[in-house]
């Protein structure tokens, strides 16, 4: 048996032994997703145990180095772990902006001290991070951000406002873009700093969205003191880190739709329109559309896999994350339009136990942000035109 086959066998056995049965059922609502952090209240004992066991092996982040408590797995091993988890229906033990965004940036740009300080806490789900990027006047034109950090000798003094900060009200720490040089061109006066959301002068205000939920906040900084050692990389060189982190954020948002569990759209449609004598959905047009989206979803899964393999082989264009972000978020919107079409009027009940308080409708409305957050679809197409296709004037 090859080493990988041995690994597969052992992994399967370990998962069967250690993944609680409750954690092998599809996530029914957003509340069942584990985000961890100081303020986290576990939804169930099974959720706590599952995170603890996976974190202990470093398998919340299978490919991070062991020295920072990651899993230390090779790409091929990580694929096997993912496959085996999928086969058993294992839930993700931990969703985390630390894993998806900050971690990769710290691994590349952080000091050794910062890596040892922050990465293990991310692996273990002890600190929940939020992202201080967008501002009221810095959306697609992110580099025009104005939140300022003044050098006060042993600390930075931060003043300003962020917006669309996902889960700022639930987060423990923030990774934040601040302007440290107002006289330099806009890309050259930005720094990347980290600070505790419990710091004096930080306040958050959730924003009520069309989904009736408030995943995003306005975040205010009023004379917040941030230790100088919390600067990542060099002063005024934060834009490079910001962009690097964005490539990871984009890949994450692109892949997000595929993580959403729940019933397949074909089953929801079967409840609504019924089946014909041959077992096909009785609405042939809807059936065709479902098949088309399924084809694109399967193809997109392969594209994600390939992008990871190309990166591992050193053949990836860094701008490729824009392809994944653009395609994945547009696909997720299509998918949710189709879910609503399949659900029919039953999916329109906003407040009812039958619709789980309008779960499908709220998720559908939430997806409308996918092609805006992390850079709009139009921004991604600009990046592809410029950095991959090398079109003139792009």
């Amino acid at each position, binding site marked *: 048996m090859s080493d990988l086959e041995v690994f597969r066998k052992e992994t399967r056995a370990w998962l069967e032994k250690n993944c609680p049965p409750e954690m092998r059922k599809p996530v029914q609502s957003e509340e069942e997703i584990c985000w961890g952090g100081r303020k986290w209240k576990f939804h169930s004992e099974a959720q706590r145990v599952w995170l603890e066991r996976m974190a202990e092996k470093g398998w919340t982040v299978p490919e991070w180095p062991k020295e920072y408590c990651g899993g230390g797995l090779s790409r091929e091993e990580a694929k096997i772990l993912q496959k085996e988890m999928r086969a058993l229906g294992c839930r993700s033990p931990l969703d985390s902006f630390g894993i998806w965004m900050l971690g990769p940036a710290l691994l590349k740009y952080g000091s050794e001290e910062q890596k040892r300080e922050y990465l293990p806490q991310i692996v273990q789900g002890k600190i929940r991070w939020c992202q201080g990027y967008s501002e009221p006047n810095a959306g697609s034109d992110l580099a025009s951000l104005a939140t300022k950090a003044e050098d006060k000798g042993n600390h930075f003094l931060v003043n300003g406002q962020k917006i669309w900060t996902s889960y700022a009200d639930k987060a423990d720490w923030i990774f934040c873009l601040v302007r440290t040089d107002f006289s330099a061109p806009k890309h050259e006066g930005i720094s990347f700093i980290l600070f505790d959301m419990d710091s004096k002068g930080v306040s958050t205000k959730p924003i009520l969205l069309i989904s009736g939920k408030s995943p995003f906040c306005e975040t205010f900084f009023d004379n917040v003191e941030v230790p100088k050692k919390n600067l990542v990389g060099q002063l005024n060189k934060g834009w490079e880190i910001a962009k690097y982190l964005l490539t990871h954020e984009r890949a994450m948002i692109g892949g997000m739709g595929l993580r959403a569990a729940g019933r397949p759209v074909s089953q929801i449609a079967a409840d609504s329109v019924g089946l014909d004598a041959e077992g096909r959905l009785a609405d042939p047009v809807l059936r065709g559309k479902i098949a088309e989206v399924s084809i694109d979803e399967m193809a997109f899964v392969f594209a994600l896999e390939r992008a990871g393999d190309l990166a591992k082989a050193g053949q990836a264009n860094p701008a490729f994350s824009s392809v994944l972000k653009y*395609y994945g978020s547009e696909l997720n919107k299509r998918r949710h339009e189709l879910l609503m079409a399949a659900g029919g009027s039953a999916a329109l009940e906003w407040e009812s136990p039958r619709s789980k308080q309008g779960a499908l409708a709220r998720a559908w409305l939430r997806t409308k942000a996918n092609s805006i957050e992390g850079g709009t679809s139009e921004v991604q197409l600009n990046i592809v035109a410029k950095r991959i296709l090398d*079109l003139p004037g792009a």
Partner: protein
Amino acid sequence: MPLVLNDEQGLLRDSARGFLAKNAPVSHLRKLRDQRDETGFSRALWKQFAEMGFAGILIPEEFGGAGLGYVEAGVVMEEIGRTLTPSPFLSTALLCAGTIARAGSEAQKKEHLGKIAAGERIGAFAIDEHSKHNPAQIALSAKRSGNGFSLNGAKGIVVDGHVADFLIVAARTSGEPGETKGITLFIVDPKTKGIETERTIMVDSHNAARISFDNAQVNADAVLGEVDQGWKIIEGALNVGRAAVASELVGAGEEAFARTANYLKERKQFGKRIGEFQALQHRAAHLYCEIEITRAAVLKALQTLDEHFDHAGSIVSVAKARAGASATLAVQEAMQMHGGFGMTDEFDIGFFMKRVRVGQELFGDSNFHADQLARLNRY
């Protein structure tokens, strides 16, 4: 297995690309068309294909082939897509040789494989009977007669059927059209009495034929596989054909796109290069995304054929559906962005549009494969 080409596959791609660019660029197809070539392809080129090892790409080494896999076959098909080269590679090297290598008797393998690998024998796979691909509907009948069978019926869009030295014919030995049971494959000499072949000049200047069977007699040893049990062999052959054509479509779509992107960088209007206009930039970027997503699906399909041949159906359908759709988008955008030049016969873009239309149709278009996927997932 990583979803990228390995080093050897990369080298194969480079050598196929170099060979085709030198010996069979689009002008090669144009010349065959303009000269109204009797066969529509170049035997000398096919001989060179054989010398390169391409004709025997799927044939085991013991029969004189290269003994490579479906990923390698797809790599060559993609390059053929870039140059639109007409050749018996699909019909002979992939469909016929692949089928005989997988399902043929020892005698059939000995008879055909070595000659195919040497570029000395051309085969054609006769399956479709209707305008739209629907293999379960096979009606061409094979009734027991004397020592063998008597064939009656007709086939259409038989790729390279007009130059084939032998045919693999799917016929019904029992059951009704629509049923997958009761289909048998035969290896047939097209010179058999009762068989008539009509070359059909196609929109893409590639090669196909209509073939009719009027009490054509074949011996019992013409059966490929077992009587009534042909469906599984056909499915396998079709999946190879679908993944291969999907690869070709990736190549054709990507080449059409590359030519278009170059044009955007050169053509000036309103005092600017037209690639500076965001309206075109976004369409080009969108098209690039579609092609890249498709490329991943097609490589996955080829790898799955190599690793789990009997379980490749749904992934192959995804690949063929995607390839048909994104190559179609590529040639449509190419045509529009080239403006009036694209409409001229002198410009090559039209050749890409025509070939992609045929590739979309071969072995099931995007709609057919969407339906397949729905069936496989029981909805």
